[in-house]
């Protein structure tokens, strides 16, 4: 059946590894039917500042971006931190051709964040009660999690204790 033959296929891989002792290298590779590109960032720990960056297209249908390296170097010093996406986008530009590379820089940064998130989540107990307690405590410690997704939405079990405490204090979460 010809509708089993794909019209378009995409693979995006992001990987994060430790290098030079404590720094992190994050690589994002995109290979799809039309585009082949790679971005590499190095992040200096513990401040999480981007200290090196490179990127290139092997295939791209819109032609070469002549100042690509210059645009990438503009994010040196930017920290992988809350609010980084608007900074990266603002520094790298808004033309359509650059947006894939911008997205890949963001993916590299997200990879770093998820690598560090993984370390935190590894501490969660394996039993269901322990897991529940772990994540319930997490949202109490980090109020940013509250109502940020379905798992921590208002009125759900994981936020019950938080909401109860805030109700006793007479204030909204």
């Amino acid at each position, binding site marked *: 059946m010809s*509708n089993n033959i794909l*019209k378009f*296929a*995409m693979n995006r891989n992001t990987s*994060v590894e430790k290098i030079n002792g404590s720094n992190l290298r994050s690589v994002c590779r995109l290979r799809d039917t039309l585009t082949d590109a790679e971005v590499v960032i190095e992040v200096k720990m513990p401040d999480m500042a981007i200290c090196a960056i490179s990127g290139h297209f092997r295939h791209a249908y819109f032609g070469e971006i002549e100042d690509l390296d210059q645009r990438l170097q503009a994010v040196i010093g930017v920290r992988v*931190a809350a609010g980084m996406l608007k900074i990266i986008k603002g520094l790298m530009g808004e033309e359509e051709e650059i947006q894939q590379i911008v997205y890949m820089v963001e993916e590299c940064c997200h990879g770093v964040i998820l690598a560090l998130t993984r370390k935190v989540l590894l501490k969660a107990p394996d039993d269901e009660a322990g897991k529940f307690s772990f994540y319930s405590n997490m949202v109490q410690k980090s109020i940013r999690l509250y109502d940020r*997704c*379905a798992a921590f939405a208002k009125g759900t079990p*994981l936020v019950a204790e938080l909401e109860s405490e805030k109700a006793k204090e007479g204030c909204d979460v």
Partner: protein
Amino acid sequence: MFDFMRNKVVDVARLDPETLEVHGILDDSIYSLELDFKVNISDLICSGVKGRWLRWTTPECPRAIDFLNEAEGFCLEAGIDNKIHKTIGRRSCRHFANLFIECAYAVRETIKLLGWQEAQREHPDLTFKQFILNDEKGPVAQPSVVVESHKEVPSPVSGAAGDTGAAGAARGAGDTRGAGGDAASAKPPVGVESPTTSRKSHPGPGNFIIDMHLHTSPASPCASDSVYAMIEEAKRIGLQGICLTDHNYVWSADAVLALREKHDFLVLRANEIITEQGDILVFGFDEDIQGIIKLVELKKRVAAVGGFIVAAHPFRGFLTFGADDVGLTPESAMAREMFKWVDGVETLNGKVTETENKLSLDVAKGLGLPSTGGSDAHDISTVGVYATAFDEIIDGEKALLAALKAGKYHPVVFR
């Protein structure tokens, strides 16, 4: 050895002449999930959104599946990402949103391919690149966004000062500058003697309390309550004043003077500006900065007019971990480039954790920089959670600037 790896795979097949079928997989060291949906080729409207978890973390993650249908009817054109983040990302799960965005990208690329194949019927030698460059829907080079702007930018909200509508009180740059606004005001200091109920102490030396960081709608797109609502709430809870620190937005002196008179309450102008080092609260500076500005350049411009800049929430962390989890100590944090240029540090911010605020305080003390407090409220519920207590009564922006430079204040827990 890799600490983390994420793979995303998206396939797009043509189910029939009108319909694409999309299948996406996100599989990483923490999560594994899938998405399936159909897209109408003519209008990019998606339907039949179904998702599946294979690996997740919290016991409540499976709830996310119930909210994937929020994407029904989405048009997957360019620019849809923000909508996906705000709907699927917030109500369902950010990882499903991430995968959905990849699927949307794959759909748009597929549409380009289909268009090219259609065009090849008449022009068999047409390459894809030629098709894209010739097609009016192909990528068109846009002028680079100016990273910093010296030009006056029209306000997103129009209206004359004194208008009662929410839009009326906000105006962009170009209006009378700050000093004029203060000189024009002959009113005595505004205290808590207001018609609305106040809960806290009377103002006075050492106890003149101002929320130095809050956002209003529509000046800040991320805020949900109007400037009027925020002022009334500030009055209700007994604050002596507020600073309007909307994102990259300059309030006119006339508009703020009108607000003070209308509400009989101290309202001060400020700004929260994005730099490559992070967000900076700026006081006594009326230039309208859009986009990103280098902190060094901002400092130069603010200093030239006698303003004052404060590092806003400098250690704001992530959803599941903060600075302490990555081993950032006050000593290493003090070495950050930004602290060479700021005049003060926000050490009580209502949107960060106690640990993050403590790190800010340790850094400020270590560097001998003064500390401020502010709620960073985006709606009335958190106005005044933190604030700044000034030793002297503040009656306008000149007095505020003088007090900031003199260091006669400290951050306080208020609400």
